[in-house]
């Protein structure tokens, strides 16, 4: 042992140590390696630039005391913005609204997704083979489209759902209210939460529950004492994520809250930046941005700890048990009806209302007589407007380029992090996580400030939107690829390396093909979200880079032409559904 300690000094650092050692007879390899190092360096700079600069800009502008000027035009630093925000009467009101909104949607989403996951995974409820996929269907609906669909289905004037409720129960419902926003956000959050919670239920060894049943514990006790503690990690992780999404989500509060001036943080930030008066308050916007960022980061920290904890519960994984389901007995049919009714109201009805409105000459409730006066007029108007060609082209460029670039960068970041390609690769991967907590309104504002200041001529083009969206989706994208990489058996890649194939060849012929399903999933996710991402497009839009979602927003809020807005929403929905279908078919073929 003494020997080792004396020798320790000349031992190379583990890791990168001898990698670049020159071996004279292998000149070309060394050059290729140098090229690889250059590529790595370029990517590090790019990711750092995309991720860290907006964060810095945000902090920077929150310290610039000015209500009307752009941050770069203000000399000196001060805490005036924070002082002004903290002492304003607005803060209390907006904070309270935000708290009610976030907590309310969390409760709604939690109750719905836990119930659905339990019923579909653990019980013999009939029809689960089509109800379970249906619960996930809203994933393909961009949130902006979802919010507008709800505005159409539940507005007090002519929303079919609102009218139905008034006729049957005698209650007036108004979706343009805090409860309305909460309900829509809650329902919107169900699919992603269900996706995280359902596996926890599926893994639950039924013997644990049966053991409790045999000693005579009633259902409620069994749930409370056995089932809930075991699914708590997954549920709380999903909850944290929903809080972050609700906190920064813009479309729902904007579409359902702004008409009655109900502000939450995210919509208030946008309001400060693009008020009807036309005079933006950049300082106030940045300061609220910092507050939201801080809250989100706290949530994300807790989330990460939770997710780490879930590994502890791996013991729950039971091999070789027969998936025995709890019998619902005489509750089977009533519960089936309740779930079906929920699915109909929450998922089918809004979409039907959207289509109905888009085919109507004016906004009107469902009726048989209305069927005879259906018209494609609004589609004709949308598609024949002078700038629709440009809008479609812009949208296509934004969506396709963002999805492709984000997926490519995600692969690079995730591969570098898992294979430890260079020092700090893991840190780079972790750094992208910070962006996850930036509300997209704030990110849009930071990118806006940056390119108003930097002499890079992309302001007003689709590229500024692409830059902002790529930054926004990079954390989620790289995490999707990372997860897939972790599940990959190392032996598959190592077996290829030792044959003498170059790293490029191994990546091309082994790694990427094995990751293909994950790459498609990532691409699709970014595609669908880029299509519906409103606030960034809204803030960065100019005369020449309008996209479909901005057009939809303008049509819905400014010209209040509901049939035309409906037609636009249906078009967006059709595009994202088509993409989902194509990708699913593609991967299904690959499986066969």
């Amino acid at each position: 042992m003494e020997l080792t300690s004396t020798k320790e000094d000349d031992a190379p650092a583990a890791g990168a140590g001898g990698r670049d050692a020159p071996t004279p007879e292998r000149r070309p390899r060394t050059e290729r390696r140098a090229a690889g190092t250059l590529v790595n360096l370029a990517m590090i700079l790019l990711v750092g630039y995309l991720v860290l600069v907006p964060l810095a800009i945000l902090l920077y502008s929150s310290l610039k005391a000015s209500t009307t000027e752009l941050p770069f035009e203000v000399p000196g630093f001060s805490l005036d913005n924070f002082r002004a925000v903290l002492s304003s009467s607005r803060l209390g009101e907006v904070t309270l609204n935000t708290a009610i909104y976030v907590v309310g949607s969390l409760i709604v989403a939690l109750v719905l997704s836990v119930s659905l996951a339990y019923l579909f995974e653990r019980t013999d409820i009939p029809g689960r083979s089509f109800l379970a996929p249906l619960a996930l269907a809203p994933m393909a609906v961009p949130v902006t489209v979802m919010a507008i669909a709800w505005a159409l289905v539940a507005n007090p004037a002519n929303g079919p759902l609102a009218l139905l409720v008034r006729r049957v129960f005698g209650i007036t419902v108004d979706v343009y209210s805090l409860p309305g926003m909460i309900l829509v956000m809650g329902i919107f959050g169900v699919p992603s939460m269900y996706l995280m919670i359902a596996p926890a239920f599926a893994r639950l060894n039924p013997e644990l529950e049966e053991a409790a049943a045999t000693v005579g514990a009633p259902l409620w006790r069994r749930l409370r004492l056995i089932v809930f503690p075991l699914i708590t990690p997954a549920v709380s992780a999903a909850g944290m994520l929903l809080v972050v999404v609700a906190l920064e989500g813009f479309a729902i509060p904007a579409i359902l809250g702004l008409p009655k001036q109900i502000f939450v943080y995210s919509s208030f930030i946008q309001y400060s930046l693009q008020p009807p008066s036309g005079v933006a308050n950049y300082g106030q916007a940045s300061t609220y941005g910092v507050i939201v960022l801080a809250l989100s980061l706290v949530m994300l920290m807790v989330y990460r700890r939770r997710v780490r904890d879930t590994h502890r519960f791996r013991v729950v994984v039971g091999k070789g048990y027969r998936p025995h389901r709890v019998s619902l007995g005489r509750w089977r049919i009533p519960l089936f009806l309740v779930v079906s009714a929920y699915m109909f109201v929450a998922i089918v009805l809004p979409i039907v209302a959207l289509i109905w409105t888009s085919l109507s000459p004016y906004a009107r409730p469902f009726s048989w007589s209305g069927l005879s006066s259906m018209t494609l007029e609004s589609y004709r108007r949308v598609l024949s407007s002078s700038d629709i060609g440009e809008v479609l082209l812009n949208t296509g460029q934004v969506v396709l380029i963002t999805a492709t670039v984000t997926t490519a960068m995600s692969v690079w970041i995730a591969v570098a992090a898992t294979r430890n390609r260079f020092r700090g690769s893991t840190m780079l991967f972790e750094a992208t996580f910070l962006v996850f907590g930036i509300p997209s309104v704030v990110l849009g504002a930071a990118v806006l400030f940056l390119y108003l200041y930097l002499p890079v001529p992309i302001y007003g083009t689709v590229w500024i939107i692409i830059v902002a969206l790529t930054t926004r989706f990079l954390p989620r994208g790289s995490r999707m690829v990372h997860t897939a990489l972790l599940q990959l058996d190392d032996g598959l890649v190592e077996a290829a390396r030792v044959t003498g194939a170059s790293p490029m060849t191994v990546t091309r012929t082994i790694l990427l093909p094995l990751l293909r399903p994950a790459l498609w999933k990532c691409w699709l996710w970014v595609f669908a979200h880029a299509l519906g991402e409103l606030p960034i497009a809204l803030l960065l839009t100019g005369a020449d880079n309008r996209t479909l979602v901005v057009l939809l927003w303008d049509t819905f809020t400014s010209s209040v032409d509901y049939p035309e807005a409906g037609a636009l929403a249906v078009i967006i929905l059709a595009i994202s559904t088509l993409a989902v279908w194509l990708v699913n078919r593609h991967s299904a073929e690959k499986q066969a």
Partner: protein
Amino acid sequence: MTESKGKVMAREAKNSITISGLRKSYEQPSKAGSAYAIDDISFEVPQGQFVTLLGPSGCGKTTTLRCVAGLEQASEGRIEMGGEVMFDARTKQHVRPEDRPIAMVPQSYGIWPHMRVIDNAAFPLRHGRNRRKGPEVRQRALEMLEQVGLAAMADRWATQLSGGQQQRLALARALLGDPQVLLLDEPLSNLDAKLRAKLRQELRSFQERFGVAALYVTHDQSEALALSDTVIVMNQGRIEQIDRPERLYDHPRSSFVADFIGSANLFPVRDASSGPGGGVLTKTDIGPVLCARTGQGEEVRYHDGGFVCVRPEDVGVRTGGTGATPGDNEFAGVVESAEYLGDRLELVIRTGDVAVTASTRAGQNLRPGGEVVIRLDPASTSYLAS
């Protein structure tokens, strides 16, 4: 460096791999007193030989193999292959796995599920060290698949193979890379016992037919003894013994090896001195024992503890009783249990406080409770210093 290189080449032309002083710690190098996953490993794999790393779980076999493959970098030491330096911690030299003349069969086989059988096999020809082009590639891959009995399945998806077929495919792929050294990490551990016995014979015959050196990792001693030209027994990151299989059993160099390979009676030694006829006279808990054998190659350091080692089949047993007085290397005892195993009788005999296991020919009338005399023949009794 340069002047010694010529010498090294000449001396090791016969060795496919030469490893000296290899150490590896997974902890940060800055940490003081860090534990080594492998600690000062040195061995050689001569050309065309089958060498096995054997040891209990966690002793560092996989780590050693991965260092040889270049998938891990050791913290200290030196690895040469065919006379060329592949790794040297002092000169910070590290040849990457793709540039080493190796092929590997990982524990999970690493069969690529997105490719057909033939594409898996042909990968080294298409993308590997010695790339080829044209119809020759498929031809050679098919020939190799023929050799391992998979030619009929060449166009199947790789996922449609059974465990044993996957293993043969992995082997075919490795051999098509035309390696100097084949590295295998427990390639049989996922299979059932019958298939394992069959495949290990196949493995050995392929290795001999292609004349390639093999470095094989296993924790199964019967596998190691049946397959290898040389076995390297490892324990807690260190090498305990390097020897031919039969010598390993007859001449274990340490108590660990004696215990790990087969079964052995090990009596702790309190005091050792030189005995008559070049043997060692030891004091143990059962009494004084004369050992004619000593741990091979080591100078015996007396008064040093150590163990007396006797295999159960080398323990002589005869019925004792009032008349029988134990002689030299003989001890009186009582049968504690007797287990009849068809061809032999497995006995546990208590003498003093010590339980001795003996295995004798069946037929003797030895019952639990019976008095016996055991005899440890000095010629088959070893003194092990550690």
